[in-house]
């Protein structure tokens, strides 16, 4: 067996996951992990599957195109790079960066650049517009994994500085406080 990554994007409707999983089942593939999300009406799914050595990526792609035809979906399949499946063994601590402020261009670009420059990985990112007229209720939440080796104080100072330059209020805090409050 070899491992592939299948990504599917397109307009959301009932049956996408059923379509993908049935093609994999019929081709004797095993789904090892799968995740999906939707933004407004758009669907995006990513699936890690083990496929038989005898099945080529091109063949699987053809089966998928056929199985999901007529749904206007973009499907890509690629072999999973073993190196990336075992990321460097860095010890990290989970932190949450949250920004509050009016919606504007560049929020994600600016903040994620600071995060990237520090060698910190974003493991989850979402925008929460509770908004209405109150710009302070536009909230971005970045879940990040901060290597224990980096200077946290400098990192948060850098984040706050860049955020305030674009009119945002930014907080960074260890994820445990959210767990402590919300999980028993």
């Amino acid at each position, binding site marked *: 067996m070899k491992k592939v990554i299948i990504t599917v994007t397109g307009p959301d409707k009932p049956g996408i996951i059923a379509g993908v999983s049935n093609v994999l089942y019929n081709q004797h593939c095993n789904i090892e992990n799968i995740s999906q999300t939707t933004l407004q009406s758009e669907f995006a799914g990513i699936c890690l599957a083990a496929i038989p050595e005898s099945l080529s990526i091109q063949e699987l792609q053809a089966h998928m195109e056929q199985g999901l035809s007529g749904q206007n979906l973009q499907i890509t399949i690629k072999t999973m790079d073993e190196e990336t499946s075992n990321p460097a063994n860095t010890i990290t601590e989970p932190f949450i960066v949250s920004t509050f402020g009016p919606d504007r261009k560049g929020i994600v670009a600016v903040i994620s650049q600071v995060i990237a420059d520090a060698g910190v990985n974003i493991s989850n990112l979402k925008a929460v517009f509770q908004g209405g007229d109150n710009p302070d209720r536009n909230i971005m939440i970045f879940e990040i994994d901060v290597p224990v080796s980096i200077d*946290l*104080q400098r990192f948060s100072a850098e984040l706050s500085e860049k955020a305030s330059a674009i009119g945002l209020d930014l907080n960074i*805090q260890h994820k445990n*406080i959210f*767990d*402590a409050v*919300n999980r028993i």
Partner: protein
Amino acid sequence: MLNDREFISTLDMLKYEHLDVRAVTLGINLADCSSHDLSVFKSNIRNKMTGLAKNLVTVCNRVGDKYGIDVVNKRISISPIAVVAAAFSSKQMVEIARTLDDIAEEVNVDFIGGFSALVEKGIANGDRALIEAIPEALATTRRLCSSVNVASTRAGINMDAVLLMAEAIKKAAELTKDSDGLACAKLCVFCNIPEDVPFMAGAYLGTGEADAVINVGVSGPGVVKNAIDRALAGETRPDLGRIAEIIKQTACKVTRVGELIGREVAENLGIPFGVVDLSLAPTPTVGDSVGEIFQSLGLLSIGVPGSTAALAMLNDAVKKGGAFASSYVGGLSGAFIPVSEDLNIEEAARNGYLNIEKLEALTSVCSVGLDMVAIPGNTSVDTLAGIIADEMAVGMINSKTTATRIIPVPGKNVGDNAHFGGLLGHAAIIGVKNADGVNRFIRHGGRIPAPIHSLKN
């Protein structure tokens, strides 16, 4: 994986609802510092306290930054000085007080608590010296707090000690008349004092405690108020059972934050973690008020009929939430009603909704007592002793902690204002019956016997 609602509600608590860690208090046992030689004793306590506390502030700030939560006060509580310095005279006790104040400044803590004596049953030489030293000690130091336990459910009320404390309060007020009797804001008289309170002015380290311990005081009246407001604004009108449940759940969350911070500070300092004291402790800031909770619950103001019932529900729900959240909840854990420290409660007193009698009634169901109450400067020692004795009786009979922190503001009378500054706030002076009169009952002396523990009616 946390959902959006959980993220947002937690961020709101921290950002908009004034949830903070009100105090991380390092308890230090000074029993092994004892000596008959004052200079040896002073050098022993300095070495021990600075050694243990040198990183306290840095570690608290670092842990606070890590979790995005403010650790507002860093404090030290110590073994009762009347016990560990029992060999010294009251003049020497004042010197010890000044040394403690210097130590507080050196390690940069906000307060040291434990210039204390436990005299509920009798007064030993060290106790008497300490009580005598209190006025000057508090008037000539900035960061020292004093507490004296004069009553307990098991021992009764030591009325001799009550009278001594009334005299001490009166004298402390006079010595600090330029600052509206500020020394009295650092002095509590207790019934059933807990041994692990992290909050001032009542913090001291009990004799049954470890060599050093970290106790944490969390606050969050704003968080509770907002939770009630949100529930009442919802579509289904919650009844009081449901509201109590919401308060309980909120108290649970707040306590969890306190334990998280406390344990991490303790681990960083290599000192055992003691307790979380979950108390609704207000500050003179809008949105950080216990009084506002009463209005959210539908009362015109704290003090109007219904207030005692509301406070009973609030206090009990807070305790239940705290007890569920952590196995080590201690200290006072409940609602505080310090008049000058809460804008809303102060306003209630100013507008006449809250008088000293109603405050006393409220203390039968809340976690402390007559707290930061400014009364006329001409209040006699007898009347002060009467107020203290009444408050002690509430605690003794109900097996709960009660305390007084009253300030007879020199030269001021009902309707005037007293300003204490900072977190201590300001207060309109409220009336006391028979303010400058005598009180023969108080002058009988002796000890009111401990109450019976059956026939509870």
